[in-house]
């Protein structure tokens, strides 16, 4: 009994320690930071008054949170980020579902090859791939020329693809698509093909077979894929930074700016905490929804 406990501690100890040092304590520091005053030259003001700095602000305050709600623009950026995350998730789902079905219903060796192709982009650096999109969507690219020539034929003024909400959405979908394909494929691959035979035998056409059998059975995969896309998109700052215009900043950019640009650490921390809370509530809602939608059956 005693050895068993020791063994368990030895196995779970290191990761637990890692999480405490690098996740729990930074989170606590950040919560504390969000309630502190910003320093005069950025960073943080001291909590206790220094002898020669008695005039400065010190102690704890909810100023950062108040500031957030004082200007609607911050709420707007939050809402816009959620909209982009939702849109990206939806587009990923629509693109990934047919692909996942195709992979799941292919022959075994072909399946492995296709999964490999889906994850192959990870082999090159994420930033390099985003910069590649900069070239593809740039004003001198073949794509831009083609689109603008086509638009010109209908007498429509040329458009700029890069540095636009469109470019941000394209980048987001491109980066996150594999995270939707893989959980969907893993789920669809487990489906018993005889269920579709049974449905067809009992009078269901192709459309009914999809909506009454394949889709409801794939919901767990849909939910996990959606969570894997939605949550990272919400915090993403690199894609809007590189592909978006000046008006396309999202929460991620805002937070990054508070720490590296304006150096308002308390406000940056407050934004991070609110984002975390928002993500947690979305995750909680999704789990609850997934559970009620798929029933209490064992999958």
């Amino acid at each position: 009994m005693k050895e068993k406990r020791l063994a368990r501690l030895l196995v779970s100890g290191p990761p637990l320690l890692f999480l405490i040092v690098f996740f729990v304590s930074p989170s606590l520091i950040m919560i504390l930071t969000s309630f502190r005053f910003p320093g005069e030259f950025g960073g943080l003001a001291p909590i206790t008054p220094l002898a020669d700095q008695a005039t400065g602000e010190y102690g704890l305050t909810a100023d950062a949170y108040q500031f957030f709600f004082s200007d609607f623009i911050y709420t707007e950026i939050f809402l816009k980020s959620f909209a982009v995350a939702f849109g990206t998730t939806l587009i990923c789902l629509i693109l990934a579902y047919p692909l996942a079905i195709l992979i799941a219903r292919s022959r075994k060796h072909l399946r492995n090859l296709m999964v490999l192709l889906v994850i192959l982009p990870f082999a090159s650096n994420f930033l390099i791939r985003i910069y590649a999109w900069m070239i593809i969507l740039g004003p001198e690219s073949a794509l831009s020329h083609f689109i603008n020539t086509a638009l010109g034929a209908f007498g429509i003024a040329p458009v700029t693809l890069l540095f636009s909400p469109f470019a941000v959405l394209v980048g987001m979908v491109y980066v996150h698509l594999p995270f939707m394909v893989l959980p969907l494929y893993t789920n669809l691959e487990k489906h018993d093909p005889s269920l579709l035979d049974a449905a067809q035998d009992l009078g269901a056409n192709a459309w009914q077979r999809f909506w009454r059998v394949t889709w409801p059975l794939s919901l767990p995969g849909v939910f996990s894929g959606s969570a894997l896309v939605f949550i990272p998109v919400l915090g993403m700052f690199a894609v809007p930074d590189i592909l978006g215009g000046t008006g396309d900043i999202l929460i991620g950019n805002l937070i990054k700016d508070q720490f590296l640009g304006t150096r308002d650490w308390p406000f940056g921390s407050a934004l991070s905490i609110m984002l975390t809370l928002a993500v947690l509530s979305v995750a909680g809602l999704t789990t609850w929804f997934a559970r009620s939608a798929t029933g209490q059956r064992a999958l």
Partner: protein
Amino acid sequence: MALLEIRNVTRRFGSYTAVDNVSIDVEAGEFFTLLGPSGCGKTTLLRMIAGFDLPDSGQILLDGKDMVGIPPEKRPVHTVFQTYALFPHMTVADNIAFPLKMARKAPQEIKKRVNELLERVHLPNFGNRFPHELSGGQKQRVAFARGLVNRPRLLLLDEPLGALDAKLREEMQIELINLQKEIGITFIFVTHAQDEALALSHRIAVMNRGNVEQIDEPSKIYSAPKNHFVADFIGKISVMNAAVMEATPSHLKLAIEGLGEVTAPAREDVEVGARGVLAIRPEQVRISHPSNESQLKNHFRGKVHDFLYVGDVTTYIVELVNGAYIEALLPNSAPGRAKFFEVDDEVTISWRHDAGIFLNDPR
């Protein structure tokens, strides 16, 4: 006109012929069984009736209408799958309601029919359960109910009892017979278990390597098999090489090498000189002490080679003087007696002149 007519149906997979020029008529209200070893083509035939596969040549007619080009969902044919294939995300009631919903029946009618079927398969309070909460036998019943609820012209059953244990299997067999009798829907049952086929069916088609060897009532299949394959596949049977010496309308006289002369029931299509086998069921063979002089014409000396005690009966394997083996069945009905002979006991083997059957395809 038969309900289902299978006319000269052939299905090939590459160079392999799974179903070879098969013709079968199934009458309305029949419990018809396709019986054969695995790979005999019975499941391929079933899939073609359901519409999941198409014949390369030949026709399948239902109510006189050619089914070619009609997809499975449009055929008035439902299937009970070997693995049941119940929808795991639906309750029992929703599973049973599925074919009715697909047929766009009114909600009140769906409810009524589902309850009626739940009652019929003895699961009245199981409507709200999920399939994973059911035992094997219960799942089986739900699968039957789902197949029957929309009253198909034909219900196909693909080895539905294969996954059940022996005792449950027997129970379900009886339920299945009653269900078919009450509802009156034509069943086509596929199995490789000959006892199941004999117990359930009105008629059986014995299949082998894509061919139908014999279509007959169970008793005919058992007592008058048409050839060596059918004889061997259905029940236990002993065979001995034999040649026809005399063929009359009343009987055959056979010569069995090293043993002597045997009288067997007459067969019309057999000529003198034909070679083949004498096939005889263990329960037709009597075994007795050598001192009891047998009254029967066909009697020979032998030695007990081995025996198999299975409770109600004991099967003795007897070596005859010519080295051939013959099986004899003896009921253990005498109180306190489980065994009458020991290994190496000298015995007399005998059978009636109208027992056994001459099959003229040599093995």
